[in-house]
């Protein structure tokens, strides 16, 4: 059976432009900072890939670029289907309305059909167990509560490719365990996940493949266990 290719990255470079002003040059000098260098990989439907690397290795930049938020300076990315990026825990919630109103407002914008919204909210209520707090103003929520709703909301949707950037650290221990179960359910239900994480346990549990980034370059890609071992070597 031919497995469908969801993501195809070829020779991807990404550089940020920074302005640096000094006492002698107040108009600022342009400087290019290379964040990703010659990235090449593909992802197929059903594949879950962990992106590992130290802070500043380029993991977040890679995910943002795949999501279409950043312009590459070289190379191409071709994606099929809908792609969502869960970075932080806010898909666009408004602070001055309740959690429930936020969900109702944003769900259709992320493609939930009108007829499915009530089920979507019910499912989210069960997952977050926020009870009556769901009807409180969003700005009064703790960061843990915001994280629960954000994570629950995103994993309740059905993108073809979900990009997750270090957001499983939200909430208490009980929630993290539930979040892992929900993520696994999500993975079973739909396309693929690319997850940037420092949690090696999670990476080995849900991913089959790993990509190790260092200073913007892929230094290893392949079996997840091997990738984790390589990562451990570079952080020694």
């Amino acid at each position: 059976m031919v497995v469908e290719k969801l993501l195809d990255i070829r020779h991807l470079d990404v550089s940020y432009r920074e302005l640096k002003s000094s006492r002698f040059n107040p108009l600022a000098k342009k400087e290019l900072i290379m964040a990703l260098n010659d990235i090449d990989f593909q992802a197929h439907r059903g594949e879950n890939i962990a992106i590992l690397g130290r802070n500043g290795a380029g993991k977040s930049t890679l995910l943002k670029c795949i999501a279409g938020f950043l312009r590459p300076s070289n190379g191409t990315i071709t994606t099929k289907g809908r792609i969502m990026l869960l970075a932080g825990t806010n898909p666009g919630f408004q602070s001055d309305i309740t959690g429930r109103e936020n969900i109702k407002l944003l769900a259709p914008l992320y493609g939930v059909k009108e007829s499915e919204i009530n089920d979507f909210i019910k499912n989210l209520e069960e997952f977050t167990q926020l009870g009556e707090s769901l009807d409180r103003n969003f700005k009064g929520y703790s960061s843990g509560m915001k994280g629960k709703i954000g994570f629950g909301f995103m994993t309740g949707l059905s993108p073809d490719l979900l990009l997750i950037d270090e957001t499983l650290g939200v909430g208490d221990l009980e929630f993290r365990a539930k979040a892992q179960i929900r993520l696994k359910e999500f993975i079973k239900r739909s396309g693929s996940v690319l997850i940037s994480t420092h949690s090696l346990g999670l990476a080995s549990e849900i991913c089959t493949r790993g990509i190790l980034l260092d200073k913007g370059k892929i230094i290893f890609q392949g079996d997840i266990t091997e990738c984790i071992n390589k990562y451990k070597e570079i952080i020694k």
Partner: protein
Amino acid sequence: MEHFIREINPEECKETMIRNKENVSRERALIRYQIWSNVRNRSKNDRLGKIWLIVNPLVTSLIYVFVFTVIRANMNTMNLIIGITIYGVFSVSVRSGVSSIKDYRGGIYAERISTKVLVLGMLGNRIINTQFQTIGAAIVLIFIFDIDVLTSLSLILISTIFGIIVEGFMLNFAKLIRNIPDLNNIIQHTIQLLFYASPVLYSFDQTNGLHRLFNSYNPIMYFIEFHRGLINERFAFGEINQIILLIIISFLIIMSIRGYKTIDRVRWELSTWS
């Protein structure tokens, strides 16, 4: 799933979406959301909410009317209200055009929304905001100055067209201003200067010499005097060469269309500017 394919390269982020019922209704919901969230964010902390969006420009106009008619006692109040209202639309549209570049996510943080949605949302915002800005003045014209409803409401239409053109025109400079933020101060001073240099507080008829020459090339004058002309049945710019008028308006419209069209490229280019 084939209904959505994206190709990302340094030149563009090209999205191919089949226009089925589901996709079209989602796109419309996103445009409505852009407009709704903009209006809401401007009034969310006030108890009276959106009412302030109409009351504020009206009160500003009335304060100017008080200052320039009661105190100086030699002004045409109706002309003042029209001038101040259209000028208000001008200054807000200028600021909106140059600052629109700050948020290209449209309040949706987890998924890229298309530039088409952003542009339509921006146009929708300009139309709604201009209506809030001008409806109070139109009501004053109807009930206090006894101007017929159609002529009074044309103030909203003229201001809306003007607002869209000005915003689009300023979008051409948005990238430059992001590059050199100091230009914001110059724009601020220019807006202030234009308030006094344009026929906002007086009629174009009352200008002469260099001042008149400047205003014959000043688009604000044409929009203000056009609405005054609808009421007074005499257009103050009637003596000006119609070709100049045509050139100025055509130039503005072409630049404005160019401005809206550059959003996609600028949005893409600026995504890696820090």
